[in-house]
């Protein structure tokens, strides 16, 4: 390394325009990352306001109307502006070409377009807030959503637009995975994160159009009075739910599959062990993506759906547990007899295993129609989906950030602070959401600003711990950003965790603008920790 200030994608080329017009997947990924984190904080702030409202019964801080707006915006922002676009958009964009040994994604311009489409859609969503909010819930159920005078139109329009960004990113990733791998990098040698992105992308391009159609139908009914969902016009309100969940159940796999991918990378690297059951994990990704299309009716058990459909949907829902279980056991077996180290990424991965298992299993409870009739629209459901989305996806996302941070930015954060924050997230999370399972079982309905006296104790626990959770996440993210200011640079050739995938072995940290200074040659599989070469070549 002759020149000390080597060129990398962060410092070359320079200037604001070189960022705004960049075709570099890493820069686009970064822009997704920052906008995603921004929305994450915005959604999180709204969540804390709600939690403090719920600290005691009665309307202490905000009115019922404001509360309705708050949970709608919280859900819509977290799902449509953060989790769905930002995780594939940020980590996927930064890592995919590096992992397959390519200079960039297959269609760099389309990639930039995706980002701007996302930003454009986000503007509509933000306009909603300035203009007085929207109060239908993130699901926009008819008939209320065709009648509500709040900003249903700008919000659904925003979601409609963001959907296209999602579709184009999915398309881009699929083309990249098919066409841009270096010679010798066969399907079974791909890092599992790439498999996960492949499954995610398939779901994105097959399910998202249905969301777009749903939003269009909603507007057709609102503006042209065409009877699609409104019984007074000859429509069927339950049909809306079919449309919505045909997208939104697969969408929960858009949220969780990248997280599975991240975990499949973190665990073998930080346990120094070959992944157990590579093909099982790879194929379970695809089968989850497929089964995910057949179970949407489990959100509609109390909608007046036919009993016949209830039985079918309930039955098929159980099958989701099989590939999911396969993954969990594979990860546990990977750690078995490995050299597990408690680095920050691994702390998040272990939290993930614990939290996602609870979330997934309670999902199966809810999939049992007889039980769901009682639990539907209670806090039990709220707890379930926070265990999978926050305890699963967001925890994995934080783990991924910590894992690839030195790679992406060439700086290392303070690992002790990171570990403490990770522990805080884990404890704060359980403290916040576990009581919500109990609340739900005792009949506390979701989406209310106030509640009966009997629920005070559990609600106030939940609020207390949500403060701890919020502070811990804030510390975790600030600790990452602090590493920029601290300039605790890692050596450009360094591989702090001893990863074996191409982004660790063949690119510098941070990577060169064109990723690889010379064409990478594959020497081993992604997790060949059982081979001696590792010790010789990569361990520092």
């Amino acid at each position, binding site marked *: 390394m002759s020149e000390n200030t080597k060129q990398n994608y962060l410092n070359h080329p320079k200037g604001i325009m070189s960022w705004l017009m960049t075709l570099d997947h890493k820069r686009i990924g970064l822009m997704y990352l920052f906008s995603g984190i921004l929305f994450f904080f915005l959604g999180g702030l709204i969540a804390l306001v709600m939690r403090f409202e719920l600290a005691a019964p009665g309307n202490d801080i905000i009115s019922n109307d404001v509360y309705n707006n708050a949970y709608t915006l919280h859900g819509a922002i977290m799902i449509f502006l953060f989790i769905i676009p930002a995780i594939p958009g940020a980590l996927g964009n930064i890592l995919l070409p590096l992992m397959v040994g390519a200079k960039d994604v297959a269609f760099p311009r389309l990639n930039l377009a995706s980002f701007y489409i996302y930003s454009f859609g986000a503007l509509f969503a933000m306009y909603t807030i300035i203009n007085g909010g929207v109060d239908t819930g993130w699901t926009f159920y008819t008939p209320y959503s065709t009648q509500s005078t709040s900003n249903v139109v700008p919000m659904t329009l925003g979601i409609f637009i963001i959907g296209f960004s999602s579709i184009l990113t999915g398309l881009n990733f699929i083309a990249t995975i098919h066409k841009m791998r270096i010679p010798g990098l066969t399907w079974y040698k791909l890092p599992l994160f790439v498999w996960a992105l492949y499954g995610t992308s398939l779901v994105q391009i097959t399910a998202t159009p249905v969301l777009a159609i749903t939003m269009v139908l909603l507007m057709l009914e609102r503006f042209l009075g065409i009877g699609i969902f409104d019984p007074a*016009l000859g429509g069927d309100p339950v*049909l809306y739910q079919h449309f919505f969940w045909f997208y939104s159940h697969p969408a929960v796999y858009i949220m969780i599959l990248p997280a599975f991918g991240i975990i499949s990378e973190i665990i073998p690297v930080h346990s120094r062990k070959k992944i157990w059951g590579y093909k099982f994990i790879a194929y379970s990704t695809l089968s989850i993506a497929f089964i995910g299309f057949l179970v949407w009716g489990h959100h509609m058990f109390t909608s007046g759906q036919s009993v016949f459909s209830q039985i*079918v949907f309930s039955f098929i829902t159980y099958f989701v547990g099989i590939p999911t279980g396969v993954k969990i056991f594979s990860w546990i077996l990977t750690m078995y007899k490995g050299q597990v180290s408690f680095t920050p990424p691994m702390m998040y991965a272990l939290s993930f295993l614990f939290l996602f298992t609870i979330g997934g299993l309670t999902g199966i409870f809810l999939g049992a129609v007889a039980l769901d009739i009682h639990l539907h629209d209670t806090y039990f459901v709220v707890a379930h989906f926070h265990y999978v989305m926050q305890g699963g996806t967001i925890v994995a996302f934080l783990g991924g950030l910590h894992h690839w941070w030195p790679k992406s930015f060439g700086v290392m954060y303070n690992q002790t602070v990171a570990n403490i924050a990770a522990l805080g997230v884990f404890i704060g999370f359980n403290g916040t959401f576990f009581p919500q399972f109990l609340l739900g079982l005792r009949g506390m309905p979701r989406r209310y600003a106030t509640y009966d006296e009997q629920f005070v104790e559990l609600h106030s626990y939940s609020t207390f711990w949500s403060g701890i959770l919020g502070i811990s996440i804030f510390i975790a993210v600030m600790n990452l950003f602090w590493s920029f200011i601290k300039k605790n640079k890692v050596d450009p050739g360094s591989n702090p965790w001893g990863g074996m995938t191409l982004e660790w072995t063949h690119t510098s940290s941070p990577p060169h603008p064109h990723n690889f200074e010379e064409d990478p040659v594959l020497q081993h599989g992604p997790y060949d920790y059982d081979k001696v070469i590792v010790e010789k070549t990569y361990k520092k």
Partner: protein
Amino acid sequence: MSEHHITPLRTYLIIAATLLFLSGVTVWVSYVDLGALNIVVAMLVATLKASLVAFFFMHLLWDDKKNLTMFLMSLMFFGIFVTITLLDTEFRGDLGLNPETKDPINKRAAFYDTLPLTDTHGHPVDEHSDDHHEDKDHH
């Protein structure tokens, strides 16, 4: 990648003619009363036309088979969606637990109270009336 396939002009013309013919069929069939089957026929013709465009004009037929797989997959998912959703509508109110959800929804729609009931040709039909309300005399 396989080399590019050159399609003879004749094929294009034949396909274009077929598409025009099928458009004619769509118009013609809309005048024939097939009951509920009308929508099915219209959708089948439309799907056929879209497929012809994809296969010949967009060269899917000679392309990498992966692309064909994607195309067929999208049809399959669409099929799953429509079939399962319609199964629900068809069985709505089975077991008689919610008798009010049993009838087809559009028969009871308020919309049909204000318009005289007609068949698909617009001819009035006599109202077999038990699910109509008193305020009928207003008309």
